[in-house]
């Protein structure tokens, strides 16, 4: 009897490799190995304008993590129009001048299909004119009102996150009904703070309330004690939107000023993104309220999609990295990257996007979108997209700090955050 021929390990590996290659070419293999035209189609390139350095670095890191997870999922599902998605990352240093240069790099050097992912408003505003001139679709995840205000251009869209105007006006009914009608606002004395001041003043008046004092803090301030005596005695609610590293001092000094008897306090979590709510010095926040774009701490009724998203981006129930609990996520904002990438995918599929020549078709396809139901594509919740203003509207959450946990006590509906159109980008030519 003849012995069967021996097959060496080297030959086995070679054979397996050749077989897998043949299967992948014909699209038989599932998942990431199975792009129908992976061998013949170039990837869809998405330029990710990342705040890797500068003041936005903490956001940039988590926007990157979310982007990577979202693209991995899209590729596992077969990519976009049968083509894999590739992310090209460039650091904009959270600087508007460099931001514009990065868009030029994307368009002319990397030859990306679209650009995406910018958060800080001044970088968006500095970059957007170049996006329009380069005719490069620019999907921002900024929450600024600059898109819907009509300041930018037809090539700039914000389909994955609500804007600050919508966020602020949807908070007013809860504040007036549950916390008080006489509000003192404390905000940084620059554009972000002024947006809050103007939008909230108007919204609380519509609810029968009033802003009894507006305390603007200069951006260079490092101590805040001298501002607290300006808070009127009649104040029922303090509304704060301090940002930057001084926020810890701000909270500590506010605690020292008020002691145990304080008015109700409502703030935007922007102040404490990437900061553990149980950090020493933040004890005074116990019992106060925060706006959240998406609940950082896992709620008892968290949806299946939201839980799957939480797992996909590698975040634990406390909103920190699973492998490093000290690394707290920018959870209230970063879902915007995930959802925006899914909108880009849906838009490209609707437009049968093949390459840069189809960029205007892509924009028209996104402009035609309206309802985006809650799903793993949109784990934060239902969205309503306004194609005229290029802005998405969605649910907002109000959480109360209880025993060091952020517990959602109110969910503002999409309707609470709607406002009249201020622009119709669809009337602008390409």
């Amino acid at each position, binding site marked *: 009897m003849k012995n069967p021929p021996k097959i060496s390990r080297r030959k086995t590996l070679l054979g397996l490799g050749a077989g897998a290659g043949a299967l992948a070419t014909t699209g038989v293999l599932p998942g990431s190995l199975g792009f129908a035209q992976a061998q013949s189609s170039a990837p869809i390139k998405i330029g990710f304008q990342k705040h*890797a350095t500068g003041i936005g670095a903490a956001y940039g890191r988590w926007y990157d993590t979310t982007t990577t997870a979202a693209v991995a999922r899209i590729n596992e599902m077969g990519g976009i129009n049968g083509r894999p998605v590739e992310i090209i990352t460039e650091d904009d240093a959270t600087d508007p001048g460099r931001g514009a240069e990065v868009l030029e790099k994307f368009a002319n050097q990397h030859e990306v299909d679209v650009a995406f992912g910018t958060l800080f408003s001044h970088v968006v505003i500095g970059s957007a004119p170049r996006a329009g001139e380069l005719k490069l679709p620019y999907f921002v995840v900024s929450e600024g009102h600059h898109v819907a205000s009509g300041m930018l251009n037809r090539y700039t869209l914000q389909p994955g996150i609500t804007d600050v105007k919508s966020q602020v006006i949807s908070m007013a009914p809860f504040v007036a009904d549950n916390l008080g009608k006489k509000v003192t606002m404390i905000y940084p004395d*620059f554009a972000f703070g002024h947006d809050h001041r103007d939008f909230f003043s108007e919204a609380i008046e519509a609810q029968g309330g009033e802003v009894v004092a507006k305390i603007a803090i200069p951006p260079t301030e490092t101590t805040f004690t001298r501002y607290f005596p300006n808070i009127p005695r009649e104040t029922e609610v303090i509304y704060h939107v301090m940002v930057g590293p001084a926020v810890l001092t701000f909270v500590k000094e506010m605690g020292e000023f008020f002691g145990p008897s304080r008015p109700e306090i409502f703030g935007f979590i922007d102040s404490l993104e990437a900061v553990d709510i149980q950090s020493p010095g933040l004890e005074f926040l116990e019992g106060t309220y925060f706006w959240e774009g998406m609940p950082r701490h896992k709620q008892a009724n968290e949806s299946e999609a939201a839980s799957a998203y939480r797992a996909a981006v590698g975040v634990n129930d406390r909103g920190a990295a699973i492998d490093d609990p000290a690394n707290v996520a920018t959870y209230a904002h970063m879902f915007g990257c995930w959802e925006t990438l899914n909108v880009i995918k849906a838009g490209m599929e609707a437009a049968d996007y093949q390459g840069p020549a189809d960029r205007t078709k892509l924009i028209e396809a996104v402009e035609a979108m309206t309802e985006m139901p809650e799903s793993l594509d949109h784990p934060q919740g239902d969205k309503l997209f306004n194609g005229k203003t290029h802005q998405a509207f969605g649910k907002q959450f109000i959480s109360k700090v209880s025993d060091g946990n952020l517990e959602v006590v109110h969910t503002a509906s999409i309707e609470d955050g709607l406002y009249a159109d201020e622009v119709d980008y669809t009337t602008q030519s390409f």
Partner: protein
Amino acid sequence: MDWTKSNALHIGTLVVLFALFFILPAYHVGAFSRIMVLAIYAIGFNLLFGYTGLLSLGHAMFFAAGMYGFGLSMNLGGLSVLPAFLIGVGAAGLLALGAGYLALRTIGVAFMIVTLMFAQTFYLVILYYGEYTRGDEGFIIQQTQRQIAGIDLTTETARYFTAFILFAVCFLAMARLVQRPFGKRLIAIRENEERARMLGYDVARLKLAALVVSGLFSGVAGAAYALLFGYVGASFASVQYSIFPLLWVLLGGAGTTVGPLIGVIFMFYLIDISSGVTNAYMLVAGLALVLLTLFAPQGLAGTLRKRALPWLP
């Protein structure tokens, strides 16, 4: 002879920049549009630092004055490009006159600190009047506004050649200026201020004139940046933009006519290339600066002049 060589160098530089538009790929054409605008800023700074020996740490206020003077005249005043541009440049010149009148009462380190403080005040004024300036966010000059006589300045070609013309005018004007008696007097002040005074020169007036001309050039750059890139923002008034021209001029060669351009090109591509390799690209830039300071303390053009080309202007 040296005068001929120097003319050949200046004309040759402009010929190369002109030709680059037809040679370079699209991305680098865009990059050079920006480089030429920033080089105007560096040329202005060089007159004060390289030729007069006055180190200002507040030049961003002049750059921003040009930028905001231009942008606000267009967006709030409804002016067209040319008058708005003149207002921007004029604003920078006036600010330089006022700031110089006060700051030039000091010398050395005190002058650096006073100019730094002036610039910081200017930056905070921009934030304070956020209602008009949109503070830190800044504002946009729309594509439709950025036209001269029907020419759309937002196309790559028009942008490049507008930057080129502005650069050429400033480059040649400065090259001429520093060879004129005015420039020689500034150099005399740099070399020995007391001796220049003893020779009968009105040193205070000359320094003020140098600061105003420097401010005007910075204003041209600021207004041109807003015109060509469509954005006006407070970050251009921050201390970072006061340090940049100092680095460009130090790298390129203080007191040389081509140094500012070389410095801007070097720094731009150093950051552009190293940022593609590592997030710690400022560390790379810092290391390059340390090495240059150690081995070429007079900058690239300065070292070239010292070692090989003594005629270099």
